């Protein structure tokens, strides 16, 4: 997909979002809506400018490098897994698992290296955030 086509899609999408902000702002009580209307109008005008600019015949921009979708989805799954595990089995089970999985499958490290880095880094996080800064990180909710 060319940058111009992407710009048109972004302009339509964000333009809709800005238009919704304007409409909602106009219905607000008192002068509470004035700033959403101003900000939305600014956004809408720039969307119109970007859309018109993308239709003008000028030298096309270099398209972005192709996205490796498999790696992207794999990474997203790892991140979602980390978030889900943090609140269910606790931060210090989720962190080493996430690091191990991503270092092994995305970083292509050998199991022992990945394991050492995952455990050492989780220990560092524990020392900095739990021991030194006393941050109450999410713990095992399943075990109460």
């Amino acid at each position, binding site marked *: 997909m060319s940058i111009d086509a992407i710009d048109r899609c972004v302009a339509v999408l964000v333009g809709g979002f800005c238009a919704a902000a304007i409409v909602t702002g106009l219905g607000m009580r008192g002068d509470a809506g004035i*700033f959403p209307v101003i900000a939305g109008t*600014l956004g809408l005008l720039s969307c119109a400018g970007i859309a018109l600019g993308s239709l003008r015949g000028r030298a096309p921009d270099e398209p972005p490098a192709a996205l490796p979708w498999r790696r992207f989805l794999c990474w997203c799954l790892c991140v979602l897994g980390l978030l889900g595990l943090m609140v269910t089995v606790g931060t210090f089970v989720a*962190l080493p698992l996430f690091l191990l999985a*991503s270092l092994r499958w995305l970083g292509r490290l050998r199991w022992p290296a990945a394991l050492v880095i995952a455990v050492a*880094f989780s220990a560092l996080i524990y020392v900095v955030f739990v021991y030194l800064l006393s941050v109450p990180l999410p713990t095992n909710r399943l075990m109460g």
Partner: protein
Amino acid sequence: MDVLLTAFGNVLTPMALLTLFLGTLAGMTIGSLPGLSSTMGVALCIPITFNMPPDLALILLGAVYVSSVYGGSVTAILLRTPGTDASIATALDGYPLAKAGRGGEALGMATLASLFGGLFSVVVLMAIAPPLSTVALAFGPQEYTVLAIFGLVTIVGVASDRPLKGVLSAGVGLVMACVGLDAFTGVQRFTFGQGELFEGVPLLPVLIGLFSVSQAFNLCVPEGGGVLAEKGQPLKGRGLPLWRDIRRCSRTLLRSSVIGSVVGILPGAGTSIASFISYNEARRHSPAPDGFGKGELEGVAASESANNAVTGGTLIPTLTLGIPGNAVTAVFVGGLTIHGMIPGPSLFTDHAETTYTLILSLLLANVLFAALGLWLCRYLVVVTRVPGAVLGPMILVFSMIGTYALRNEMFDVWLAVAFGVVGFFMERWRYPAAPLVIALILGPILEVNFRRSMQISHWDLSTFFTRPLSMTLCLLVVLALAYPLWNQWRRRRSAAH
């Protein structure tokens, strides 16, 4: 003079020097971690100071404050993960330099610029604090409105070579800044009933998402990705910038330090405005403005000297008038009060020795972080050689835990991850993220002061042009808008000839 000598004696005791060293090291570490801001660093140190004598307590707080602002530049340059909004402008040129294998030079320049800006602002604090603070008091809602507009115009101009994309990014940021309970009418705006959004979209999760989490995606997703542009690329020589480069940046350093000190005095204006205004000014005065954003040492120098000059600037109204200029100095006021010192003119009379001890310790903390920074930068730069798929998960983990630590809310972590994905695609599609974050910071300042101005003037827009300070700032806005257009016209004309 006696007071100054006594203060010198206080700062140079072994215990004071040890406190200074530990505070500086802690501040540098805190500043470099995404999510841990200067405010948090100073706040975390306050309980430690309970049992300390006042002068040692203030030395610790001062050292953490100034060195945490510098600490943000290290990760902003090497990994493009600015710890705080103060370092966003630094990443614009610092990261391209690191990608080109010149991270050592960029770090060296950032350290020297931070040192210069920090020392300059402390000298300003010592010399002309009281008269400058009265100028800050002359700033009313009209001036703040125009200053916020000036900040936005500047940032849109510097953040992208496609200004319209910058405007769109800022527009979205301004709409997001409307989220939350309206301070004037109590109306809920775009909260969708979510309690977490009543106070507005939290800034730091958005900042961490757009810069740090998106960078983790950038490093992990491409096969064989990394900080260095090419695999196996050598790190180019120097850990320090050349004397020639430092001399070339000397005017920028001075100009940015003045801007940083002045902006620091204005309550609420903040380090990010100072660094972006300075960055823009450096680009405007540069003989090669096209190099900015692609790896120009002068850009790093401008941003870093300005954000460190803010530290002394913010302490001017705090110490002389008792008005904290930002969140860090508000926490600082708490620290002073705990030790029985009420911020205001009495600090320079009743507690003069302790106050000057604090000011001198800021001076020493600047020298200390610079020495540590210059020594460490040749080693820190090695991090750019670590493969992206190894660095990425670590950045993500630090970002997520740092985000959670802010309010202990998983909502913030989800928000950071969502903005991480948005930031990843914004970068791919060449939409600058900096205007969005800065608009989110400046939006509330702009709205509150605009509405106050309108209430005072009964909706008469000429109020912005009838006050001398506001009028001057309006002229600066016009200049900031007109200059790029004039420059473009001049370049086209010379190309035609």
